[in-house]
C-alpha cells in the first residue's frame, strides 16, 4: 500500500533539495515543450538569461518589471497571511493609479516635484486601500466571500478607467486618439542608477513589511486571525478591525504599485496599466511562501522570465506567447512540488503484512 502522510517541519536542506528538483524538472519539461514546438531549448533558455541579464540596460529593464510585481506581492502577502484571498490586486493597482492621476492631472506644474509625488502616493494608497476596504468591510460585517468580491472589483476598476480614457478624461490634444493627457514633469518619478526610484521604495517596503508581519502586534494579530478565528476571538482580538486594517494596508500597497507604474512607466493613466501584475503577484506571493525576502527573490526570477521572454521575440523570433507557456509550465511544476514538501510518500509495511496474513 502506498501511504501518504503529512510531514512535520522539513529540515531546510531537504526543502531546498525538493525545491531544486522541482525547478529542474520544470525546466526539463518546459524544454521538451520547446523542443516539440521546434526550437532549441538550450538556446531558448540561454537567450532568456541573456535577454534579462546580458547587459546593464537589460538588467535595468528586468528590475523595472520586478518593481510593481514585488510591491503588489507584498500587499497580497499581508492579506493571504490572514487567509483573506485578495485576488483584487489588479483593481487595486488601477485604482491607485487613478488616485495618483487625479493629483497629477490637476496639480499646477509649478508645485515642486517632491510634494507632487508625495501627494500622488498618498492619493494612490487611499484609493487602492479603499478598493480593498469595500470587500473587507463586507467580509468583516457579513462574512461575504472575498475571492469573488475582490475579483469583481478588478473589472469594475478596469472598466471605470477605460470609461475615463475613452470619455471624460480623453486628452483633447491627442486628436481623437483615446488616451489620457501625459503627466507634467513634476509628476514623474526620478531615477537612480538608471532605474526609477520605485526600486528603492520596493526594497524599503520589503524590510517594512517583514517587520510589520513578524515584529508588530498588528502583524501578529493578522497571523492569528489567519490561523484560527476561534483563537483570535478567544484571545479577545477585534477581528473586524484586524481584517479591515490588513486589507487597507494590502490595498494601499497595491495602489502604490499603481502610482509607480503610472508615474514612472506610462507617465499617464491607461486601462491596461496593471498589465496582469495583480494576478501574477498572487502566484509570486504564494511561491514566496508569504515571506517578504523570499517574495523578493521569486519576483526577480519572474521578472527575468518576463523580460527574457520579451527578448526571445527579438533575438530568435520566438513568439512572446511561448514565454507565457513556459511560465505556465514552470509554475505548474513548482506548485505541484509543494506536495512533496508537505507530505511524505512511503510504503506502509504494516498494512502490506496484514494483507499477506
Amino acid at each position, binding site marked *: 500500500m502506498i501511504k*501518504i502522510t503529512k510531514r512535520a517541519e522539513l529540515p531546510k536542506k531537504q526543502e531546498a533539495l525538493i525545491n531544486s528538483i522541482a525547478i529542474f524538472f520544470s525546466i526539463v519539461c518546459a524544454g521538451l515543450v520547446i523542443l516539440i514546438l521546434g526550437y532549441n531549448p538550450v538556446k531558448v533558455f540561454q537567450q532568456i538569461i541573456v535577454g534579462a541579464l546580458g547587459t546593464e540596460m537589460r538588467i535595468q529593464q528586468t528590475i523595472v518589471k520586478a518593481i510593481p510585481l514585488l510591491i503588489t506581492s507584498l500587499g497580497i502577502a499581508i492579506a493571504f497571511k490572514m487567509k483573506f484571498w485578495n485576488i483584487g490586486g489588479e483593481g487595486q493597482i488601477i485604482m491607485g493609479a487613478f488616485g495618483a492621476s487625479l493629483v497629477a492631472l490637476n496639480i499646477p506644474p509649478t508645485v515642486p516635484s517632491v510634494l507632487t509625488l508625495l501627494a500622488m502616493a498618498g492619493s494612490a494608497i487611499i484609493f487602492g486601500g479603499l478598493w480593498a476596504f469595500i470587500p473587507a468591510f463586507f467580509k468583516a460585517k457579513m462574512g461575504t466571500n472575498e*475571492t469573488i468580491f475582490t475579483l469583481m472589483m478588478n473589472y469594475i476598476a478596469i472598466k471605470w478607467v477605460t470609461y475615463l480614457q475613452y*470619455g471624460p478624461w480623453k486628452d483633447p490634444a491627442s486628436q481623437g486618439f483615446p488616451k489620457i493627457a501625459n503627466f507634467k514633469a513634476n509628476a514623474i518619478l526620478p531615477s537612480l542608477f538608471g532605474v526609477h526610484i520605485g526600486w528603492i521604495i520596493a526594497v524599503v517596503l520589503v524590510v517594512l513589511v517583514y517587520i510589520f508581519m513578524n515584529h508588530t502586534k498588528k502583524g501578529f494579530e493578522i497571523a492569528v486571525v489567519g490561523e484560527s478565528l476561534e483563537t483570535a476571538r478567544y484571545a479577545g482580538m477585534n477581528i473586524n478591525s484586524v481584517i479591515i486594517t490588513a486589507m487597507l494596508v494590502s490595498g494601499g500597497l497595491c495602489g502604490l504599485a499603481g502610482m509607480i507604474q503610472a508615474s514612472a512607466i506610462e507617465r499617464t493613466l491607461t486601462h491596461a496599466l496593471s498589465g496582469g501584475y495583480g494576478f501574477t503577484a498572487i502566484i509570486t506571493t*504564494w511561491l514566496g511562501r508569504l515571506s517578504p525576502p523570499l517574495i523578493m527573490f521569486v519576483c526577480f526570477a519572474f521578472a527575468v522570465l518576463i523580460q527574457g521572454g520579451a527578448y526571445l521575440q527579438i533575438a530568435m523570433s520566438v513568439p512572446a506567447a511561448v514565454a507565457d507557456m513556459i511560465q505556465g509550465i514552470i509554475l*505548474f511544476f513548482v*506548485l505541484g512540488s*509543494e506536495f512533496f514538501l508537505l507530505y511524505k510518500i512511503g510504503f506502509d509495511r504494516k498494512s502490506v503484512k496484514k494483507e499477506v496474513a
Partner: protein
Amino acid sequence: MTAFLAATVVAGTPLLFATLGELITEKAGNLNLGVEGMMLMGAVMGFAVGLCTGNPYLALLGAIGAGAAGAAIYAILTVLLRTNQVVTGLTLTIFGTGFASFVGKSFMGVPAPATVKSLFGTVEIPVLSKISVIGPMFFQQDIFIYFGYIVTICTSLYLWRTKKGLNLKAVGENAAAADASGINVNLYKYVHIILGGALCGLGGAYMSLVTVPVWQENVVAGRGWIAVALVIFASWKPSKALIGAFLFGGLNILGYRLQSMGIHISQYIVDMVPYLATILIVIISTRKNRKEDMGPADLSNPYFREDR
C-alpha cells in the same frame, strides 16, 4: 428589438457553456479560476481543427479536448497534489492565454472556414419559433444554441434527479462525509472538473467560430471571468445560469445598441453592470443566508483523507 433579443442569446451562449462548466466544477468542491484559459484553449483548438479539416464536428471535438486537457492539468494539481486552487486556476489562465496566442499565431485575422460555419446556420424549430418574441429570440437560432438548452436541462436533471448528481453535491458539500459514505471523492472530482473544462472549451470555440468569427488575439475577451461571476449570480443552479447568461450576454452588446438609438451611455459603464450585479448577489445571498443560495460548503477546501 427582436433582433436585439436574438443577438442577446447568441452573445450569451458562450457564457452559458462556460458557466455550466464552472458550475459542475464547483459542485465537486473545486473553484477553478482557469475558465478564461480553458475557453481560450478551446477557442484556438476549435478554430485550428476547423481550419485544417473543415469539419465542424471535429472542430468542436478539438475544443472539447483542449478544454478538458486544461482542466485535467488543474485536476491533477489540485486533487492529487493538493495545490492551492486559486493559484492553480490563475496559472492555468496564464498558460491557456499563452497557448492560444501561440497556436493562433499562424492564422491571425483568418476568418473561420465556411464549411465549419455551415453547421451554425439558423434552424427554425417548428411551432415554437412561431410564438411571438420568444420564438425569434430562442427558437430561430443555430443548433449549438439548442444544444446549450439541452445541456442546461441535462445538468439540472443530473444534479437533482440522479444518484450520481446527488453524490456529486455531497462531495462538494462535505467531502469527508461523502467519503465516509463510500463515494469515491477523488474520482468524482476528476470527472467533473474535466467535464467542466470540456464545456468551457466548447464555449470558447463558439466565440472563435461563430460570435466573432475571425481568429484574433484574446478572442474570449474576459468572458471566462464573467462566467465565474455568473455561477454565483445563478446561485449554482443551471436554470438560473441560463437566464443569467443571456442577461449578461445582452449587457455585453447593450451599450452599442443604446448608442445607435441615440442614448449616450458608455459601453464601459454598461460593462460594469454584470460585475456590480454579481457583487450585489453575493451580498444579498450572504445576508439572507439561505442554504440553497449558497455555494457548496466545501468549495476550495482541498480534501485529504488522512487529514480527518
